[in-house]
């Protein structure tokens, strides 16, 4: 059974690009336009992995992440953090990795395959 990836990004072109790439690799995808939409959709679906942008309108992602239980999350963002901040975030809860935008398609697929 194909695994399901939720793509949470306020930029439609990014959402659609990642969706196309992952569906071509055989994944099911669910799209959410921001963190609040993500939480709403999680009431009815449970993806294997969430790709979560950091800078989005609405509730800050730090609060969104706290409300997501039992699903692995990968930050997928252009935001750069320090090494110390990254370690702190990875040691805390269900965030398991970062994908830096602009991302390399092969790296994205590789990471999703490894983590989903």
């Amino acid at each position, binding site marked *: 059974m194909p695994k399901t990836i939720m793509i949470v990004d306020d930029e439609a072109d990014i959402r659609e690009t990642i969706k196309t790439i992952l569906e071509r690799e055989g994944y099911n995808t669910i799209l959410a336009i921001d963190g609040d939409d993500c939480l709403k959709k999680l009431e009815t679906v449970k993806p294997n992995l969430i790709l979560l942008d950091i800078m989005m309108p609405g*509730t800050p992602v730090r609060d969104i992440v706290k409300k997501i239980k039992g699903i692995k999350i990968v930050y997928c963002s252009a*935001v750069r953090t320090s*090494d110390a901040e990254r370690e702190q975030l990875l040691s805390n809860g269900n965030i398991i990795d970062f994908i830096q935008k602009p991302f390399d398609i092969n790296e994205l697929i590789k990471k999703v395959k490894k983590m989903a």
Partner: protein
Amino acid sequence: MDIIKELSDNQTILLLMPGIEYNKIVLETIKTLSDKRVCYVTLNKTYGALKELFKKNKIKTDNILFVDAITRSLKEAKDIPKECYFVSPTSISDAFAALHTIIQQEYDYLVFDSLTNLFSYKETEGVEDLIFVLLNKIRETKTKAVFYALNEQEKFIPRCCMYVEKTIVIEK
């Protein structure tokens, strides 16, 4: 490009650059300006990431006030350093309101990094108004301002050129 000279001739400058040159230009510019009082607005790197990056490149940060619109998205901002303001990451209007107050402290330079990130928000129409108001607030001070943007955002960036005194396009 002599950024000091450009800013002595123009109060507000837009630096349009290719993505590949972005980090190099950002570092060169802040290195040149860092002897004076600088207000550095970041929309793509956390305060922590900038401090780490500047330290690695031997850039003094003693004179820099950081306005960080990222960190509060990621974590609770505890023990806020005195050289940093963490502004609202989810409301551009609130972030700009805070910025209007901060620039009243008469910095020599304001660095806005970057318009490209600003336009990644949904409220595009409102973003232009915010930039326009910010530039007017800057004109009420003696602060010289440099705005960064990637030159790949064809739809919005040319419109911002109208608001600043000079646009410098950096080629690859």
